Every structure is written in structure tokens, then in C-alpha cells.
């Protein structure tokens, strides 16, 4: 409050400067609350490293993901007897370099996360907005359908959907998105119902706003905080579900270096060559953990209820 009047007295700012200032200030505030959560910061760095890895995969990876070195089947990692610097994390049963496959795999995992969240978010938010804004019978029908979807064990439903659509990475992503979208519907509906009765919405209505404008321009931007958190958390669920579908042979098909599919291919060597199973597993674990930690931090920073000031 005080610094508003101070800046007002001392200097006249141009629009652009003013806008930049506002944005910087909001970013600073966001970072203040986010960085209070140490785990979230670590999670964020891991996630950023992962994104970098995925983008630079062709540069970083020592080998192409699908080249089979016939003379180097099931070579152990470098620190074990028989390991070689050529294949740092060893090779799999058909002689492909594990490290390179894992690095390329991160591309798929991030891709899956982004696509699934994008599909689930857009459909879920739209449906939730309609349900929460109009209420009445529309709301009842939508929410009962969502309840039915939620009543299925999620992986089972995804499996059924993939069985109908046919196996493959794209269909798996669509299936996972359909399974996840009720969460967005519920969240959006609850947020919209809370915001709808606020005075600023009434004021916009009195100013003459129509339904569409009220829904998308007035109410929706104020419901984003819980949605961002949910998006971060379901990003990791999507990776996990995609890995599970891949493991069951219903997701990405071999020889795609998707982590879940890699696990499935390695199943029979689990006793002879621990590395072919362990490394994809660790990759999934670390990614999911990092994203979940980051999601926690986002909630701390974005949920106004948790803000202390």
C-alpha cells in the first residue's frame, strides 16, 4: 500500500514499464511461496533437467535407441565385471544401449504427460464450467456420468478403452485422458460454483455480460490455481498409467523406447540381468516423484487459502 503511493509520487511510468513491474512483482511473490518448499525446488530442477534431456536427446545419447549391437547382448553396467564404457548402463537382450533408450524414453514420457493433460484439461474444464455455471438438470446429468467413470478402477477402464480403440501410444493417451478428465470436471465445477456467487460476477452481469463472457472471461481465470496443481499431479499419473499400459502391452509398442514398454520387454530377464528392469523403473520413479513434489510447491504458491500475508 505504501509503495503504491511512493511510486506514484516519484515517477510517471509508461504502460509497458508498469505492466512489466506488475508481472515481476507477481513472479517474485510466486517464487517466494514456491521456494519455501525445499522439495518442490528440487523437484523442479529434476523436471527441468528431464525436459532438457528430452530436447537434447539426439545430442546427448551415445547411441541411437534402436540399434542392436549383436556382439554385446546383456552387457552389464560399467561398474560391474564385464561392463564397458561404451554402454554405461549396459545393454538389453537384443544389444540396445540402455542409457540411450532411457534418454529417448524421456521424450515419450513428457509427450504423454503433455498430451494427456492437454486433452483432459480442455474437455474437463469445459464440461465442469457448463455443469457449475448452469446447475440444474444439466449439472445432474454430467455429474452422474462422471460418477460412473470414477466408479471404474482407472487402469481397468483405460484397458477396456484401449481394447476398444486398439493398442498403441496415441490410443493409450486418449484412454488415459478420458479416465482422468472427471477429476478436472469436479474441480472446475466446485471452483465455478464458489466463484459464481461472488460480487464481481454479479457486477459483470449488471454491466450486461452474457453467459459465455461470464463463464470464460470472468469466472474461468479465477479458477486456474487448483487446476494448475491438478494438472501437475495428473501429469505424473499419466506417465505412470502410460507405463502401466505399456507394461501390459497395450500402450506404446516395441521397439519404442517407452519406459513402461521397456519394463515389459525385460520381464523375462529380471533374474539374470537386473539392470534391464531396474533402470527404467528408477526413471519412472524419479520423474513421478519430482513432478509430485513440484505440484506440492505449486499448491503452496497458488492456493490462496494457504497464503499467509
Amino acid at each position, binding site marked *: 500500500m505504501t509503495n503504491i503511493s511512493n511510486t506514484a509520487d516519484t515517477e510517471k511510468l509508461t504502460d509497458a514499464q508498469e505492466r512489466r513491474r506488475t508481472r515481476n512483482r507477481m513472479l*517474485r*511473490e510466486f517464487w*517466494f*511461496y514456491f521456494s519455501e518448499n525445499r522439495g518442490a525446488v528440487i523437484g523442479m530442477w529434476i523436471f527441468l533437467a528431464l525436459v532438457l534431456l528430452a530436447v537434447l536427446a539426439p545430442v546427448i545419447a551415445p547411441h541411437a535407441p534402436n540399434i542392436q549391437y549383436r556382439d554385446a547382448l546383456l552387457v552389464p553396467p560399467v561398474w560391474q565385471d564385464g561392463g564397458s564404457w561404451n554402454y554405461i548402463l549396459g545393454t538389453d537382450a537384443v544389444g540396445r544401449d540402455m542409457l540411450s533408450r532411457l534418454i529417448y524414453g524421456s521424450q515419450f514420457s513428457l509427450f504423454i504427460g503433455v498430451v494427456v493433460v492437454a486433452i483432459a484439461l480442455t474437455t474437463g474444464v469445459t464440461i465442469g464450467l457448463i455443469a457449475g455455471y448452469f446447475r440444474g438438470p444439466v449439472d445432474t446429468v454430467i455429474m452422474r456420468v462422471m460418477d460412473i467413470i470414477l466408479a471404474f478402477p482407472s487402469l481397468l477402464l483405460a484397458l477396456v478403452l484401449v481394447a476398444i480403440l486398439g493398442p498403441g501410444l496415441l490410443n493409450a493417451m486418449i484412454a488415459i485422458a478420458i479416465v482422468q478428465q472427471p477429476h478436472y470436471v469436479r474441480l472446475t465445477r466446485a471452483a465455478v460454483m464458489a466463484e459464481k456467487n461472488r460480487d464481481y460476477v454479479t457486477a459483470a452481469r449488471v454491466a450486461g455480460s452474457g453467459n459465455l463472457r461470464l463463464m470464460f472471461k470472468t469466472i474461468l481465470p479465477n479458477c486456474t490455481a487448483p487446476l494448475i496443481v491438478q494438472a501437475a499431479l495428473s501429469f505424473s499419473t499419466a506417465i505412470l498409467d502410460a507405463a502401466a499400459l505399456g507394461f501390459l502391452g497395450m500402450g506404446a509398442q516395441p521397439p519404442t523406447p517407452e519406459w513402461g514398454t521397456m519394463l515389459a520387454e525385460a520381464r523375462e530377464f529380471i533374474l539374470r540381468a537386473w539392470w534391464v528392469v531396474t533402470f527404467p523403473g528408477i526413471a519412472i520413479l524419479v520423474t513421478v516423484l519430482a513432478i509430485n513434489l513440484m505440484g506440492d510447491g505449486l499448491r503452496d504458491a497458488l492456493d490462496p487459502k494457504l497464503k*499467509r*500475508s
Partner: protein
Amino acid sequence: MTKADTPLLEIENLTVEFDTASGNLKAVDGVSLSVHEREVLAIVGESGSGKSVSMLAVMGLLPWTARVTADALRFQGRDISNLTSSERRKLVGKDVAMIFQEPIASLNPCFTVGFQIDETLREHTKLNKRERRDRTIELFEAVGLPNPEDRLSAYPHQMSGGQCQRVMIAMAIACDPKLLIADEPTTALDVTIQKQILDLLVDLQAEKNMGMIMITHDMGVVAETADRVIVKYKGRKMEEADVLSLFENPQNSYTKALLSALPENATGDRLPTVTDLTFEQQANPEASA
């Protein structure tokens, strides 16, 4: 020093600071005050003046982000600045009780009001079940709740705001506290109910010889209840005076501004607004340079 001279509560140079995204915030800045038995002290100030925070600090009810420092915090001459949490619990609720602004939110919606008072009594007294029930009914009568026996099994949502505040008051006086802190007790209530609650508080205070601290922003409430008044602004004490001289002859420019802004004191077509900023400098000596 005789016992009567020892203030009930004595605070010297209390400071409370918070860390926020926009830097360090001094909510209370070097405030000293004391309350005696049978005295009503009103702390009046606008939002952000730190009037509630100082009392919450004394009660140890602030979140961990707050840094509280004071030269002395004494209750009946006893130092309370370094109490362990269990000692503090014994003090708060028994010798010092507090009532809050939102009566309905201050009661737990899951339990009957009878149960909640019973809980307080169980915590702080040695009464048995039968005696506690009788005591609760007695308290309900004292705070003027109709049909006290039926009220025992009522839930907070079944009662009006005024009735909930009566229950809160009953709970606060359950253990015969020596000091009652009322934090904006009537702000959420209608005018007619406010009158009843204020009358009740003042009557109880006189009857039980309690000290009372009335935190409020409303000059009307101050005029109707207080013996002595402290005016706060931006965490600092601006003026301390007995109630009559404060209204009759305010010394501080902020108090003057506050009183002249009351619509009932309006003389002309427009209300006088706060233009004399000397009090701003008083509250903020470093910034005025």
C-alpha cells in the same frame, strides 16, 4: 506494593513482526499497556493497526511465522513471556479468556454447544459430570440464553449469531477468568443484538470484578463500554486516556481526525477528511524524513 496496585496484565514494549513476500512487516511496534482489575480498557484502531495481533501475541496464539519480542509480559505480577505451552494452556482459558469476532465460526459445528462448554470445564476444573451440567445451565442463564436446558443439545448452526456469541461468552466466563479479552465481539452482529451483547459484557465484568480488554474499531462501542482507551495506528500507540477526556479533549491529531470523521459529528455538507498528517509522522518517524 499492595495487591490492588499490581496490574492484572502488564505489557512493556511489545513488538510483533511477520515475514511476508513483500518483506518484513511490523504489526505491533513497541506498545506498552496495562489493565487493572475491574477495569475496561478499550483498544481502538483501524484495520492494520495491530490491535488484535498484540493480544493474540500475549495469548501465544500467533502462527510460528511471527516474531514476538517484549521487555516484559506480566500477568498478576508473574512473568508469562517464557511459559511452556502447557503452562500457557493452563493460563489461557482459565485466568485469561478471549472471545472473537465471528461467533458462529468460533464454535465447532460438529458438537453441541453444551458439549463444548463441558469440555472447557473438564479441562480447567475438577467438577464431576453432574456438576458440570449444572454449571453449564447456570452459565447459560447468566448470559441470558432462553431455555438453557434445551440449549445444551443445540448445535451452533441452529442458533443465531447473537445466541452463538452468548454461548462464546458463557464459555469464556466458565472458569471465572480474571481477564476477558473481547476482540471485536459485536462487529458481525446487528445493532440491536450488539446493544444486548455489550450490555451483557459490561454487566458481567462489573459483577465478576473482571478486567476486560475491548478491541474494536467502533468509536460508539468505545463510548458505551470503556473506562480507559488506547488509540492505535499502524502498530503504534497514539494516545492513551480515560474515555471522557478522550472524547472531550483529544490530544493526538489522529484521534482528533478519527472523531471528526464520525458521520454523527458532521457539521457541514461534507465530512472532514484526514488531511493533517502529523500523526503519520508520529507513527513512522524514520519515513517522514
